[in-house]
């Protein structure tokens, strides 16, 4: 089994606005545009970005909770984006999801044991004895007492509920877990416990994570590689240490500079980013970040920067910081280039 565990190619999701019965062109929300990345077995890839940049949509696309508009999602080389419902069923075992909100993602009417064993029961019949044994085992894995088996979610704390969510994801022994803001709804102390639990599970079971977060402190703690998204596109994809040490894309730099550091003497680096995130219905021409970018040149306003590899292996989409050479640039964008700016 060579090649990456998960490979995402040109994933795109457009949400049409309204049902355009009479109008010829319907406005669309470009939630995810041309996103490509890969995840190796046992690796943690974090996707960061501000609210509305499409990171949760990526998670939902990976799980096929929404149908992609275009692109491919390959697991061990099989495209699951094109699979029919029945064939998809088998692939559900390979990847599982941990949800953001530990309150609404657990059915309030089911007991802890029922919640965490349900995925397995979708694939095989369990006797009551097997089910209880499995539930106790899963609870132990996520650091909970097997006595919690018969509790309802309403009788558990936020941290315990999120542990249940993780236990549910673990029940099918997946090779990949997608965690969509899995710790954002929790207290900081509980966040740390849950993150350490995830790291332990990764070490013990070799699970790969796609971890979606807006909390850079969390990301720095657990990521191997980080993808920075802005307005539906990846603008920088870099190893974690390299990104935090020296962000290349101006948006990554601004994002990292904006993250609070628990040190009152730490002088904040001023990276001036002004204005609002543009609307994904009508994104700016060229680089989506150019209206807010302190480095923007004329070329940024007309031409979309491709993701180009840099010397240290990271991928950056920026005309100024990572100018594409003739060989690396895609032919279509090179042909349309207007080099009037100097």
């Amino acid at each position: 089994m060579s090649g990456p565990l998960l490979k995402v190619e040109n994933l795109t999701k457009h949400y049409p606005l309204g049902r355009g019965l009479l109008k010829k062109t319907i406005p669309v929300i470009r939630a995810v545009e041309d996103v490509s990345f890969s995840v190796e077995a046992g690796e943690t890839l974090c996707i960061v970005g501000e609210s509305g940049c499409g990171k949760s949509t990526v998670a939902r696309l990976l799980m096929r909770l929404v149908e992609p508009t275009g692109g491919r999602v390959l697991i061990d080389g099989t495209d699951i984006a094109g699979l029919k419902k029945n064939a998809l069923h088998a692939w559900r075992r390979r990847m599982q999801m941990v949800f953001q909100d530990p309150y609404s993602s657990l059915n309030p009417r089911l007991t802890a044991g029922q919640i965490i064993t349900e995925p397995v029961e979708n694939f095989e019949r369990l006797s009551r004895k097997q089910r209880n044994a499995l539930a106790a085992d899963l609870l132990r894995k996520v650091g909970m007492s097997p006595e919690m088996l018969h509790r309802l979610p309403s009788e558990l704390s936020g941290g315990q509920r999120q542990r249940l969510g993780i236990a549910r994801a673990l029940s099918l022994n997946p090779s990949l877990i997608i965690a969509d803001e899995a710790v954002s709804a929790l207290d900081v102390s509980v966040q740390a416990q849950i993150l350490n639990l995830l790291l332990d599970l990764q070490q013990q079971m070799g699970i790969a994570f796609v971890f979606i977060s807006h909390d850079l402190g969390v990301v720095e703690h657990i990521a191997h590689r980080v993808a920075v998204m802005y307005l539906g596109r990846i603008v920088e994809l870099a190893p974690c240490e390299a990104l935090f040490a020296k962000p290349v894309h101006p948006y990554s730099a601004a994002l990292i500079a904006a993250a609070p550091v628990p040190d009152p003497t730490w002088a904040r680096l001023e990276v001036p980013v002004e204005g609002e995130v543009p609307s994904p219905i009508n994104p700016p021409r060229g680089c989506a970040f150019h209206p807010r970018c302190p480095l923007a040149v004329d070329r940024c306003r007309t031409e979309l920067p491709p993701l180009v590899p840099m010397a240290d292996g990271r991928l950056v989409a920026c005309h100024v910081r990572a100018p594409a050479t003739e060989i690396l640039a895609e032919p279509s964008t090179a042909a349309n280039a207007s080099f009037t700016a100097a």
Partner: protein
Amino acid sequence: MTLLSAPIKAVPLGRLQLTDLPRVARRHPLVSMGGGMLALLIILAVVAPLYAGDPVNMDPFKRLQPPSAEMWFGSDNLGRDVFARTIFGARISLLVGLLSAACATLTGLLIGVIAGYSRSFDNVVMRIMDGLMSIPTILLAIALISLTGPGIGILIVAIAIPEMPAVTRLVRSVVLGVRERPYVEAALCGGAGLPRVLWRHILPSTIPALMVQGATVCASAILTEAGLSFLGVGVPPEIPSWGNMISSSRLYLSIAPLTVFAPGICLAVTVLAVNLLGDGLRDLFDPRAKRRR
């Protein structure tokens, strides 16, 4: 938002046990009152042959008698025992009320779940429901009964059909709200098929609303049955029912008032019991609704 709204929750149905019954009854007097009255009426109706006389036996020599030890509520214009007829009439009212409510809620549940879950069915089904809603109950019943002849079965169908769209709408709206919940998505991620998602994750959420609506439908079905019987298109006249009794005795109101008041008061009490139960259930399932009043 979700964090704030999460702690306000309804009574978890799954955890209610028989030993909780006195506690729930004390905290929700409407449920215990309505439920108690209804239970009493049902028991009285079921065991009627044990203590009430013959409701159909006519005696021309004892027409329009005042109450006596033999006939507690007196007799009607054909010399029939009004008490026995009232008690046996409860059987018809409760039977028609409960069965029409059951028919309307079950079909409404089925159609509502389909409409709520399937975008493509939704539009078609809901337009049909709008059409059904516009049919007046009484006219539909008259039309159906004139086609098939009077009978309790056709009466139940005729009452259930116009009541069903309201249930469908209600169930559909609950399903629309629940299907987007993260726990439903989580179930899909876990590989759950459609039957399991519907049965385990969506249907239970509709039960509280369904029970409340069921009580409302039941009360209105009892009234409709009485109304139809009064008009002479409901229960066949040889079967004692409250509507039939009021209809046939209304000319003798001044001579033998109990012939009209006995079934009338029973009708009012039954409908009151069912409505109290429905109101109480709504408070029981939705604590927020109670606080607002």
